[in-house]
């Protein structure tokens, strides 16, 4: 079977999510990880850039680690449309046979990657939190596959971590969560090669038409924050969330929230941390009135330091906390603000 053949000399590719002339941060983060994978495999790292009038973005891709950019431009690609982008990406992948292709696990990546995988009959692992290169031995045949992409992801509501491999049905593909890979340093003097490829598209390829659009408000930049102060249902009301903002202000921190706080309307969805929110890795995460259910922990347990304030000494958040205060946030937070003001 054609799809069972593998191209071990193939490049490592990163799909570039570019909307209105901006590259999504996750794509640059993936270039950082892709660089490591490509170096381990001893192959080039390439970016797959699809769109119209996007050539100007190549520089940023080179400076973040790409050796090559596969550039596919067409009038029908001026905005993201699932079917046209699938056709363009499938054309590139068939022509150049990369061994690995990774996508951000964004709403776009998770719309596009499965459609591509199904077209190519290739494997795809969703929502990875880490990628490595390693060998895999088949349990029964004992056949050893060298240097596969180890795709590491939480599953079962975050209760288990699974490592997935893809011995055949290449390219090995995965979507990767935003904010879990480190953003690589940009090096403006790095250069690379642009490989142009004209996609063959027909009118039927762009079949879904946007008739109206209301852009989301600017997203809160939780991923870049060194300190996050997050509030949960225990904050009690939208008005009382001022406490969370006040503490964040004295610390120069961003504000996060649990899904329960978002659902209750205390704060906007853009602030949500967790499995269905943002994954964060700050130096300090302060959890105020958050019980610490597994879906919340999935997005913040990698923080270097976790400080939990909760009136319930048995709240699960304490089991991953480094510092814990059993108490009422309405009393504890003002004390914290006072203590910080005193020191600076």
């Amino acid at each position, binding site marked *: 079977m054609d799809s069972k053949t593998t191209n071990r000399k193939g490049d490592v590719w990163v799909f570039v999510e570019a909307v209105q002339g901006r590259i999504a941060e996750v794509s640059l983060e993936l270039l950082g990880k892709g660089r490591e994978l490509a170096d381990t495999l001893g192959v080039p790292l390439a970016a797959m850039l699809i769109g119209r009038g996007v050539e100007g973005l190549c520089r940023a891709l080179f400076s973040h680690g790409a050796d090559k950019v596969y550039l596919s431009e067409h009038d029908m690609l001026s905005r993201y449309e699932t079917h046209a982008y699938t056709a363009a990406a499938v054309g590139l992948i068939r022509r150049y046979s990369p061994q690995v292709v990774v996508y951000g696990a964004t709403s*776009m990546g998770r719309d596009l990657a499965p459609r591509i995988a*199904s077209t190519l009959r290739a494997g*795809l692992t*969703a929502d990875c939190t880490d990628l490595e290169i390693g060998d895999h031995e088949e349990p029964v045949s004992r056949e050893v596959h060298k240097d596969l992409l180890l*795709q590491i992801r939480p599953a079962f509501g975050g209760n288990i971590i699974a490592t997935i491999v893809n011995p055949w049905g290449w390219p090995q593909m995965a979507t990767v969560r935003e904010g879990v890979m480190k953003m690589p340093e940009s090096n403006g003097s790095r250069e690379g090669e642009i490989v142009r490829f004209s996609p063959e598209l027909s009118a039927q390829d762009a079949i879904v038409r946007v008739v109206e659009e209301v852009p989301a408000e600017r997203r809160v930049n939780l991923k870049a924050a060194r300190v996050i102060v997050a509030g949960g249902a225990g904050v009690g009301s939208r008005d009382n969330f001022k406490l969370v903002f006040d503490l964040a202000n004295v610390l120069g921190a961003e504000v996060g929230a649990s899904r329960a706080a978002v659902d209750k309307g205390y704060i906007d969805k853009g602030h949500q941390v967790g499995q269905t929110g943002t994954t964060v890795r700050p130096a300090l995460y302060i959890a105020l009135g958050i019980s610490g259910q597994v879906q919340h922990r999935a997005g913040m347990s990698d923080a270097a330091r976790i*400080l939990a304030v909760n009136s319930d000494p048995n709240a699960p958040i304490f089991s991953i906390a480094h510092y814990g205060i059993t108490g009422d946030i309405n009393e504890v937070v003002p004390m914290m603000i006072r*203590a910080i003001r005193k020191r600076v």
Partner: protein
Amino acid sequence: MPYDIVVLAKQVPDTKRVTGDAMKEDGTVNRAALPAIFNPEDLYALELAIEVKERFGGSVTCLTMGPVSAAEVLREALYRGADRVALITDRRAAASDTLATSYILSCAVTHAAPYDIVCCGRQAIDGDTAQVGPQLAQKLSIPQVTYVSDVEEIAGSLIRVRRHTDYGMQVVEAPLPALLTVTDKAPEPRYPAMKRVMKYKKAMSPAEAEARGLPSPMGDMLIETWDLDTIGADIERCGMAGSPTKVKRIQSIVLTGSGYHEVQPTQEGIEGLVHELIEDHTIG
């Protein structure tokens, strides 16, 4: 104009209720220890389908692939308003990844044809992949619209829906037949109607009837069961053989519970903490 709609629903373990005893020694999940539920977002997909039928006429068929016990979600679909249901169950389908699952479901949907709209949930809570919907659409060679919250209009063979992505809200139009993946922003699923519950609580698959020593169910009470041969699936593309991805290793997340530094909720206690955090350059 009436529309025939197929809804794909999955029975999933209630992952919200995973506790220590649901994890086996080897780090895998003991599914038997968890209640099995109708995948939450699939309930929204079913509700959306029923509302379309109520507005425009047509039919709602609900399909599920899983073990014999998955007939439970089909009964639930009947209670809530599905006209027809079928269970796809076959040992050879076990260990299918999303590529193989979407292939099998594409054979089942084709077998259930005609259809104008296929509705999936955005994602199933056991794997959280959100891949089966788009892969199924590709296999059926129909357009997909993901993250749908509302159907605004259907006119002839054009559907207009509202969807929500990272970039905001969009209203989009797609030609039918099309596949929608539905999120929990869609209208709240209705409760099962008492009359329908009374009517369909005895609906059963032949296997369930046999297990209970009952005669094979007939007519409205029959939950059809299809195997891979019924739906004409190529066995090479199903189960383990059709799944390029393999699970290499599974680890359970064990809460460290390693003990934390307990800070007293007093001004002195908190000042001590702030001091420590400044000293080690965490803040300040």
